[in-house]
């Protein structure tokens, strides 16, 4: 689960990680109120959406007066912000963060994430902040410091000293970065994060270390033990169809092709999307109905696929294991009877109870195209792609 910058900063403050003075506003009036509490200019107004690259899309502005603040807040709240990460359709901005502007001496970078190859927790610091960290790592790897922490023993003073000396900090700042790093590590572990990133982490003219930005992702699998973090979920940031699918335990991701597909198992679903591509078409979605799907979930999945108006054909590919083919077939027939079959549907089933499933489809009088195996399914999809 991704959370907003202002929410991450709320958590930062709980963990004594310094952030600029400020607050979040949904309206111009609220923004004005925050400005009046801060009492000094310049102020920074930052659009709160989950995607990065907000500055490039005009979602981050510096203002020097109350009039300017009102004008800018009015412009940003409610705007559709397009950044390199939102896609061309952009995101509507519901909230802005209003913060005190700082005089920055230097911009650094600090992040924590799991390293899946070594099963360690990796702390990454960089002498160069405020830019894309992957670019810095590619062009000037000497500016990047990577510290590997064993999750069983956690962060130790030696790790903090390595970060401080790697960042070439003054003695006063060394104490500060040590505290900040261990607090950030504690937050990472205690909130079950899969990423915390401060980019940039700034040194101000007063020799303070402040988290100017904050990015946090929380492990969805761990949310059961973080009831307090659930309030941070922002459903307006989620694709409505994907959220609807999730309610039924369907793992659906919408894509921009024309061939819908429904598969059990994530690996087979990805491979099925690839087959559609190799057949000369593009997948309209990823849909994993999972191992324990029942007829109702299949019906829902079918409807969700058809709700995408770009869909010109559907490939259903089920390898029956726990999910039996007869259950799948029943679901497809149920759904098709309700919605009709407005586009060609190719069904390929194999595994548990495949004969029963095939019979249910054959007896249904529905215009479904059965495929003998995956190769056959691919050829049938290719034919649809060519002559929809």
């Amino acid at each position, binding site marked *: 689960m991704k959370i907003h910058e202002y929410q991450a900063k709320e958590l930062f403050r709980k963990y004594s990680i310094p952030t600029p003075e400020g607050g979040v506003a949904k309206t111009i009036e609220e923004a004005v109120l925050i400005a009046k509490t801060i009492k000094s200019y310049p102020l920074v107004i930052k659009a709160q959406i989950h995607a990065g690259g907000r500055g490039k899309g005009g979602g981050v502005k510096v203002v020097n007066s109350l009039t300017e603040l009102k004008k800018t807040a009015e412009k940003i709240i409610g705007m559709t912000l397009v950044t390199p*990460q939102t896609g061309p359709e952009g995101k509507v901005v519901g909230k802005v963060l209003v913060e005190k502007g700082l005089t920055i001496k230097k911009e650094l970078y600090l992040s924590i994430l799991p390293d899946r190859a070594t*099963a360690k927790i990796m702390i990454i610091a960089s002498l160069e902040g405020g830019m894309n960290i992957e670019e810095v790592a590619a062009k000037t790897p000497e500016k990047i410091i990577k510290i590997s922490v064993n999750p069983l023993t956690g962060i130790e003073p030696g790790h903090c000293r390595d970060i401080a000396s790697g960042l070439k900090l003054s003695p006063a700042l060394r104490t500060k970065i040590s505290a900040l790093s261990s607090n950030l590590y504690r937050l990472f572990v205690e909130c*079950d994060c899969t990423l915390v990133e401060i980019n940039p982490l700034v040194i101000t003219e007063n020799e303070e270390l402040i988290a100017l930005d904050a990015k946090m992702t929380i*492990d969805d699998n*761990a949310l059961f033990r973080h009831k307090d973090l659930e309030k941070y979920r922002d459903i307006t940031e989620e694709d409505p169809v994907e959220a609807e699918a999730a309610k039924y335990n369907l793992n659906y991701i919408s894509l921009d092709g024309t061939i819908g597909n429904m598969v059990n*198992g994530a690996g*087979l679903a990805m491979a099925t999307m*690839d087959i559609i591509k190799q057949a000369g078409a593009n997948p309209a979605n*990823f849909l994993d109905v999972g191992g324990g799907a029942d007829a109702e979930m299949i019906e829902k999945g079918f409807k969700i696929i058809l709700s995408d108006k770009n869909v010109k054909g559907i490939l259903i590919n089920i390898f029956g294991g726990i999910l039996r083919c007869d259950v799948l077939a029943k679901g497809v027939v149920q759904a098709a009877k309700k919605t009709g079959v407005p586009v060609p549907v190719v069904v390929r089933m194999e595994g548990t109870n495949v004969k029963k499933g095939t019979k249910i489809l054959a007896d249904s009088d529905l215009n479904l195209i059965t495929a003998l195996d995956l190769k056959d399914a691919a050829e049938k999809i290719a034919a649809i792609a060519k002559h929809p």
Partner: protein
Amino acid sequence: MSIFVDKNTRLLIQGITGREGRFHARQCILYGTSVVAGVTPGKGGQKMDKTPVFDTVREAVGATSANCSMIFVPPAFAAGAIMEAIEAEIGLIVAITEGIPAMDMLKIKNFLDTTGSRLIGPNCPGIITPGQCKIGIMPAPIHTPGAIGVISRSGTLTYEVVHQLSQEGLGQSTCLGIGGDPVVGTNFIDCLSAFEKDPETTGIVMVGEIGGTAEEEAAAYISENLTKPVVGFIAGLTAPAGRRMGHAGAIISGGSGTALAKIEAMRAAGIHVCEDLGRLGEFCAGLFKSS
């Protein structure tokens, strides 16, 4: 021969009295797996069909000499169940559970590496040595005993591959899913090295997917250490960057973990990459039957 499990494996099942646990325990017993015990805290002394249930893994091991455990415990308690099995010195632990928090797995993996236990999974279909022993949720009838080793990060995709191999008359020595999570107990390299040492395995099929660098590392290992032919397949050529494709581990982030990079690394290592899943069986037959 086979890897990790055979007819001498004595299985205990943690979470045997749950709906899933019970169903799959029965399926494994039907296949001929020697299921000697179940563990469900608070249900010690009961029986699941004919299998005795114990409160703790240690008690179950003491009474039945179980040497392998399969875990069907819900995600919130699965890490604790794995730890209990490691501490009871179970040699092989197979965790089927999906949705274990990443932080729990990071800790388990680091602890595991200091012990003599092997963990397969989590979030995996399990392991089967056809004709001898099934520990997992895979549909049994698609498997046939033989000489091809199958390793995969996925569940149903593995079934597809195994099914095609069996259709082509290529039986399997052992098939296992290592799991779709970012951190798993056993990786491709552990399995490849075991298959290389297994005299009955003559060829290997390795099924990978987008995300992480496990396939690239395996490819490097293969080019240095393997004499047996390896067929490779990677799922996710069409997967968009930044979206998690079902499995927690299947995500292309920061330009790494793409299917193309993996295929390239595999080809460079001399792995026979098949890009068309529909013809994977034919592809393997052409290669393995001639060599």
